[in-house]
């Protein structure tokens, strides 16, 4: 189940979206989150849906893969839909099954809101699917750069993010290793009463905490030995390149926004 999840994962590729500057992608996603709320009738939602599916197409990520990977999230969307159907009691009743009454407004709200939710999920997933974590970090760092003026630790935050990203696989391996070592000493993680299972977490968490701490300490020493002393006077190896595509995509989203305002009811 977890292995098929693609939420937050990167899929290598060469598509138009893959080649875009992470900054433009971040800005577009940010704007899209706002723009979504302009839609309020069938034509505007249709435009939004068309825009989203165009982007999915441009990413060249197989639909089957997207569908399989987002399945758990679809459940959530469906749940949102049901919630609105049962909670909204406005407009004429369109269906009555015993105690259950479905109102027209409920159906409308249910469809619109779950659609909005779905589109947001698709667009943000596209960002992570086509952008490596380090690019996202880089993009964020550059975009937030103006905040440095107010002593906001932009560089440190970005570094922290990229180091955590780098250590996630290592920590997963470590967890697996310690779990096995304690299992070999008679701890049971997958069976037994709940109370026992909770108790079993301690022999896992303490070594994990200690080793992470040690890792962090060694990493800090290694960083210092390599001349790290904070963001000041540092040059950057990674360079972001804003291209024509990026400007074009932003303008395109602008045009879509204008269209939404026109069609809005």
């Amino acid at each position, binding site marked *: 189940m977890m292995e098929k999840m693609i939420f937050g994962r990167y899929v290598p590729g060469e598509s138009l979206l893959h080649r875009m500057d992470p900054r433009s992608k971040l800005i577009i996603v940010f704007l899209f989150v706002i723009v979504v709320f302009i839609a309020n009738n069938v034509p505007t939602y249709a435009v939004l849906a068309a825009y989203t599916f165009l982007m999915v197409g441009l990413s060249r990520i197989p639909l089957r893969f997207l569908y399989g990977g987002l399945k758990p999230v679809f459940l959530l969307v469906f749940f949102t839909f049901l919630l609105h159907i049962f909670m909204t009691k406005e407009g004429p009743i369109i269906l009555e099954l015993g105690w259950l009454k479905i109102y027209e407004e409920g159906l409308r709200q249910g469809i619109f809101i779950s659609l909005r939710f779905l589109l947001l999920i698709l667009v943000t997933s596209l960002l992570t699917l086509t952008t*490596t*974590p*380090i690019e996202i970090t880089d993009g964020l760092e550059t975009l937030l750069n103006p905040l440095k003026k107010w002593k906001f630790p932009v560089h440190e935050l970005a570094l922290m993010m*990229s*180091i955590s*990203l*780098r250590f996630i*696989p*290592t920590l997963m*391996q470590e967890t697996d290793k310690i779990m096995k070592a304690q299992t070999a000493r008679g701890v049971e993680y997958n069976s037994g009463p709940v109370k026992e299972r909770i108790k079993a977490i301690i022999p896992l968490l303490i070594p994990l905490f200690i080793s992470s701490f*040690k*890792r962090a300490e*060694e*990493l800090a*020493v*290694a*960083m*210092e*030995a*390599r*001349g*790290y*002393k904070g963001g000041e*006077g*540092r*040059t*950057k*190896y*990674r*360079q972001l390149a804003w291209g024509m595509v990026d400007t074009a995509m932003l303008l395109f989203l602008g045009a879509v926004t204008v269209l939404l305002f026109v069609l809005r009811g």
Partner: protein
Amino acid sequence: MSKPLVTIDGVSFSYEGQQTPALKNITFDILEGEWLAIVGHNGSGKSTLAKLLNGLQFPQQGKIAVCGTELTEATVWEVRKNVGMVFQNPDNQFVGTTVRDDVAFGLENHGVPREIMVERVQTSLDKVQMGTFLNQEPHHLSGGQKQRVAIAGVIALQPAIIILDEATSMLDPRGRAEVIATVRELKDREHITVISITHDLEEAAKADRVIVMNKGELYREGTPEQIFEMDEELVQLGLDIPFPVKMSKLLRHKGVELTKTHLTEEELVTELWTSHSKM
């Protein structure tokens, strides 16, 4: 004769809250272009000494000078450019998310302009035979490959000295051989001085000079021949006797004449060949 590149003069050091000092009154020189091996039992102070040379800790007593500059809080950043370090655990020194980012890290820290950086990242990775791994993530590399990336990160800064703190002890024999061969080649080609802290006595036997640490003190300093003549004394110190030395002794014992105690198998075989064949 080469001149001293590093001078260590009467250095003592204790970690905070520790009663016994980790280093006691250490004095010795490191010569330009040499391969210096530091051996000693676990906890004898080897890593502490390495940290002092890189300014990661400062001695409570005594002085250290690197390339003529005394190591102080004020000069530490300059000195660090000259002294590169590779640590034991390949995982805990890999900062970047990919190989190229990791090699660039040190260059970024020292404010190297981007154009130079791009070139140096590539050339240093080529030098350690990792030039085709630019975009690999660390968890897809073997231990030996990670260590070679770490070495690339160090030589990108063009240091005068590389310190290997048990850089091969977590590797399998093949990874170990790769890393040592890489460093050897760099030393010869780029005239880098190498300080290798190691438990591997075969490796120490191939050094130009060996220092034996014992309980925070410099126990002995000399050529590998001199050091490995200590024999049983080494075992007392928690160390061992290299295999060729053991064999030389055994052969003598069995009546085979040898001019000296050999430190490498090649030397031993060569002498046996020249003195005993076709008599």
